[in-house]
Every structure is written in C-alpha cells, then in structure tokens.
C-alpha cells in the first residue's frame, strides 16, 4: 500500500509543480502551445507517470528517475557561453550546418554557411510567434498525449525546441546538425519539443547529437513530430552520448505521405537510461520507412527501443534492424510493433533484433509484435539473444590476435550491419570509430568536453 501511495505521490509532485508554475508556462507562450497545454496536463493527470504495469513501459521503470528533486527551466535563460565556441564538432568532412540547444532551448547563434532559400531552422517558440499559422497546422497533431503520459507531460511543459521547415522540392545537400546540450547548474528536468516539416519533394539529412556538459543529474523528456510530404526524403540520425546520471526519454512521431522515404538511425553510445519511442505512420501509398538502431550498454545502463510502424496504405515498405551489445549488469529492451491495417495491401515489413550479451548478468528483453489486418502482405521478424561465438573467437586467437582484440573484432562485426546503413560517409566513418572506441572500453566522446562517465 505504501508503495502505491509513494507512486501516486510522485505523479502528484509533478502535478503540483505544474499548478505552481502554470502562469509562467502560459505567459509568453503563443496560443498554439497553450491550447494544447491544458488538455495535455489533464491527460497526464489521468495517466500519471507510467509504471511497469503499463504494457508500453513493461521493461523500463521510469519511477526512480522521477525521484530526484529536479529544478525546472521554464524560462529562457540568458545564454552564458556560445556553445558553438566551446564545441567544435570533430567529425571530419561532415561539413554540416550546425545549430545547438541547451536544456531544451534553442540557441540563437551565428552559423557558418547558408541554408537553401526558404529553409527554416529556428527556435520553435520564436516561430510560433512569427508564423503561428505554419506551426499550428502541425503542432501536437501526431504526438498523442492521451495515450502516452510522457508525451502529455512534454506537451504540458513545452516551451521551446527546434523547428525545421523545408519547402517544396528543396534539396539540402549539406546535412543539418543539431547538438542538444544538457548543462544546468542543478539537477534538472528538461523538456524539449521539436517540429520537423518536409514539404512535397523536400530532401534533408538531419543529424542530432545528445550530450551532457556537466555531471548534474538530468531527466530529459523530448518529443519530436516529423511530417514528411509526398515524395520527400529524410535521413534522421541520432547520436546519444550522455553520462550515467541522465535519463533520456525521446519520443519521435513520423507521418509519411505517398512515395516518401524516411531512414532513421539511432546510435545509443552512452546514457544512464535511454528510452526511444519511434512511431511511424505510413500514411500514403508506396512509402518506405527504414528504422535502424544500435546501443552499447554497460554498468547499470538501460536502453529501451520501442518502435511502432503503422502501415496504413498499400505498397508500403518498412525495414527495422536493431542491435545491442550489453555488458556488466546492463539491461536492454526492444519492442517492435508492425501494424498493417486492412487497406495496406502489398505491404512488405521486416524486423530484426539481435543482441549480444557479454556477461552473465546483463539481460535483454525482446518483443516483436505483428498485427496484420490485410491479407496480401509480407511480414517477417526475427530476434536473437546470444554470446560471442567461441569458435570464431578461437579462430582469431589461433592466428595470433589477442583475446581482447579478437572480442573487439567480433563485436564490431556484430554491429557492422547497422553501422553500414548510414549513408553520410563522413558520419559513418566517425561512428565506426566511435563504435570501436566504445567497444574498446574507452568512452566514445565526440567532442572535447570535460564529461566523465564513471559516475
């Protein structure tokens, strides 16, 4: 009984906080946001912080991560330093157009180079004020707060994030990179809300990097809505590299119109708790969704990839490959749903999840789920949980390669299938290197910050 009360209390704590800061939240926020805020808050009150009894959160216990006495950042703070100045991305030849956010807030900064005409990469809050019509058309349309408490909480607290708009038939040759920093003076609860709109025929490659810049504790609850127009093409890369005191809950909703192709690729290199919700709705005929992910976990880290691919129209293709390497007492989960609705004939859906356990104490939960209401479809899925192939290991050692190196080669080989799905060559090379360093026991940092992961 006392446990129940405690759990209820925990949600109440966040509800009470909302009521306390309600005025600050509404104040200065455009109507677009506030209209959704109220409803989302009610949705959160109804649902509370998800527990393991919730089927969607069966393998991830969020409660301990909500316990700390977090500070909230509901107002934009004066920028202390220009993250562009302290941060120098060392991916060679990546040559991306870089913008940053700090604690969920979009940083105004000067960026070298130009985006093609009409492309907008801005603060969401700012864009809501400047072009409310454009934002209103999309905001909170696919991220549903009544079925996911974390989305509800995000929508209730949402103030800022990034907004990317690519007009009709505009092709961005140069990748766009967004670096999300967590850097607050106290343990903090961070809310970030992003919106991506690709009009018909638009083409863009988006690279997102999540980093922590100091050792404070963070709970980051981010929601991204992505609208992909007819015949548009999006590559969406995520690199998660945060310290062990961070809980990162990221929910990405993608809606694709006909003939569009989206490739999402998530590399979870480091983090205390990582939960990636990926929901793809294939809303037009002949759409393609490629959803890839890999995670490296050790110590007590936890990564949960939760995907839902909903085929709504005929001739769609989806392709999921997720791989995890788990060491020490790490825990991992993969739940992948493929839902083919009645109209979506001639759908081809594939899902694969492979996991490599390096210790006897690491655990992995994998749950493929198919709901098929159409009769002419091709769906397949497979999941494996295993150890390093000892025969292969011996073969390498018998050629003079020492055990550690041989193991590393095997782990690299295991992940290679996912790494090679990255189409931006410079990024692929860089990630290849990060994979090797991560597997080698070195912390895969991608920048020169003072971040330490022994915590």
């Amino acid at each position, binding site marked *: 009984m006392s446990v129940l009360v405690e759990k209820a209390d925990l949600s109440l704590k966040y509800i009470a906080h909302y009521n306390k800061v309600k005025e600050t939240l509404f104040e200065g926020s455009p109507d677009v946001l506030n209209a959704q805020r109220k409803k989302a808050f009610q949705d959160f009150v109804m649902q509370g912080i998800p527990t393991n009894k919730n089927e969607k959160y069966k393998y991830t216990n969020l409660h301990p991560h909500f316990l700390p006495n977090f500070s909230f950042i509901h107002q934009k703070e004066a920028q202390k330093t220009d993250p562009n100045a302290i941060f120098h991305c060392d991916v060679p030849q990546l040559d991306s157009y870089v913008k940053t956010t700090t604690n969920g807030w979009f940083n105004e900064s000067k960026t070298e180079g130009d985006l093609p005409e009409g492309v907008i990469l801005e603060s969401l809050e700012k864009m809501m004020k400047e072009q409310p019509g454009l934002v209103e058309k999309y905001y909170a349309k696919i991220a549903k707060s009544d079925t996911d408490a974390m989305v509800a909480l995000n929508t209730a607290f949402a103030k800022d994030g990034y907004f990317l708009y690519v007009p009709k038939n505009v092709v961005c040759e140069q990748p766009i990179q967004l670096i999300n920093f967590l850097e607050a003076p106290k343990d903090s609860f961070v809310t970030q809300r992003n919106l991506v709109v690709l009009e018909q025929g638009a083409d863009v490659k988006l690279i997102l990097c999540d980093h922590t810049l100091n050792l404070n504790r963070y709970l980051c609850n981010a929601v991204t809505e992505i609208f992909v127009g007819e015949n548009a093409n999006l590559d969406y890369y995520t690199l998660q590299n945060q310290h062990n005191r961070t809980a990162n809950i990221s929910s990405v909703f993608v809606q694709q119109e006909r003939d569009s192709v989206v490739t999402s690729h998530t590399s979870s290199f480091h983090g205390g708790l990582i939960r990636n919700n990926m929901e793809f709705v294939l809303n037009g005929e002949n759409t393609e969704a490629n959803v890839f992910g890999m995670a490296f976990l050790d110590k007590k880290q936890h990564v949960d990839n939760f995907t839902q691919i909903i085929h709504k129209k005929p001739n769609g293709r989806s392709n999921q490959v997720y791989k995890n390497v788990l060491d020490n007492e790490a825990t991992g989960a993969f739940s992948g749903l493929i839902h083919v609705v009645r109209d979506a004939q001639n759908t081809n859906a594939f899902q694969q999840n492979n996991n490599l356990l390096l210790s006897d104490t690491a655990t992995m939960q994998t749950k493929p789920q198919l709901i098929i209401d159409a009769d002419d479809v091709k769906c397949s899925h497979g999941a494996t949980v295993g150890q390093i*192939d*000892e*025969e*292969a290991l*011996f*073969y*390498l*050692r*018998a*050629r*003079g*390669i*020492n*055990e550690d*190196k*041989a193991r590393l*080669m*095997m782990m*690299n*080989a*295991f*992940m*290679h*299938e996912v790494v090679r799905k990255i189409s931006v060559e410079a990024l692929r090379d860089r990630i290849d290197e990060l994979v090797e360093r991560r597997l080698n026991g070195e912390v895969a940092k991608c920048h020169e910050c003072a971040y330490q992961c022994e915590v």
Partner: protein
Amino acid sequence: MLLYSSFERVGEAFLKRATIMLKIKNLYASVDGQEILKGINLEIKPGEVHAIMGPNGSGKSTLANVLAGKQEYEVTAGEVTFLGENLLDKAPETRAKDGLFLSFQYPVEIPGVPMANFIKTAVNEHRVHRGEKELTAGQFLKLMREKMELVEMKTKLTNRSVNEGFSGGEKKKNEIFQMAMLEPKLAILDETDSGLDIDALRTVANGVNALKSPETSSIVITHYQRLLDYIVPDFVHILYHGKIVKTAGKELALELEEKGYDWIKSEKGN
C-alpha cells in the same frame, strides 16, 4: 670457470632449441570429461614432416586442438614443449605468435570481420611479438599479393568477410594463404585435404611445399594417402584410441591405403 659453464649452458639450450621443435610427453587430454588422448609421445625436429593417420575418433583433431590451445580440451597429464618452452601454459595467441599454426579442419565463417583487416591484424601482432615494426598499408598489400600468388589463391579478398561464402576449397586455400602470411615454424594441417578435389589438393600441397624449409616442420593429419603423394612425410604415425600405436616411414601410409585400419584394430584389439 663459472663463466665458462654458463656459456656452456647457453650453448646447450641453443642446441636443444635447434634440434627439437616440438616434444610431446605422455599427453592425456579429455573433453567433457571423456578421455580422448591417452598418453601421446612425439618428437619433431626442424625440417621434418610428420603425418598422423588413424581412423575416425582416434584423437587426431583433438591433438591438433590441444596443441593450438582450444579451451574446451582439458589436459589431464603430460607435457608439451615447443622450441624448448612449455606450450600448455600459453594462450592460443601466444602459441601462434611463437610460431605454431593450425590449419583448421573446418575454417570458421566470421561475418562482418573483413578478411584483409583480419590478416593484417594477425601479421602485425606477429611482428610486434618479434619486436618488428608493423607493416604499412602498402607493404601489407604487396605481401598479400605475393602470398596469394604463392598459394594460387584467386578468391578476391577485399570486401569479404573471413571465410564467409567461401567454397570448401577456397576455405582450405585460405588457410594455407594465412599460413604463408604468418610464416610459422610448425604447421599443423588438420585434414586439409578433406573436401578438396584433386586439383585443389595439388594447389594446397604445392603451397605447403613452397613454404617448407630446413627450419620449419609440419604435422599433416589425414585419413588418406593421396595428400602424402604431394606432401611427402618423413614419418607416419598411426593414432588409435588416443595413442600412437605405430610409427614408420612414408611406406606405412601406402600400407594403410592398401589394407585399411582393420589390421591395426585387430593387432591392438578394440
């Protein structure tokens, strides 16, 4: 006087090193609690080729794997010295770098590990072990081309994973190619002839012979005489029920080919 005697001792050790490559003394080994090797004795000198023959299940592959250091084989008694040093204490990779090479009966496919990367790492580990510099990319490619030619290896290795999708013959050639790259002092060829047609057999044998020198030795494990037509052994041993029951010159292989193993079985009892 003291100085003289220590010189003498060094000289002795050197002599011993030079005259004995591998010495197996009363070796017992088991796998999953089942005893397979039951007292093997064998001595191999530099330059010698020893063939080990015997019926299925006699312990030939077990001997090869024990020498290479496979973990699931437990040595319960006996000792093995390789170039004067205790072999059994060493990790498989150290044995390899000391100059022991096992050509696998069933080479393992390792998807995702590029062949070139694998062999380059192996070569460089050997070089570092010997106190030499690692090869540059250019030097490595040149060496690889040379050795591929030597073993008549036509399989394109770039962009391929170790043994993945190789035919049976290609896999065996790949073993000999690796041997050529690593230049071992003692090569153990575990049924390298199995699954090869006569042309592939000849190529593989030619490769092995091309690598032969007065300083290197080999152990050729086989069921059949035909490989020994190409790789001519100095000694033929018959392994039966975990023991070497007969040792003779190359004529023994011919005798086996003719009479089969039954006469050994009846001679030794089942």
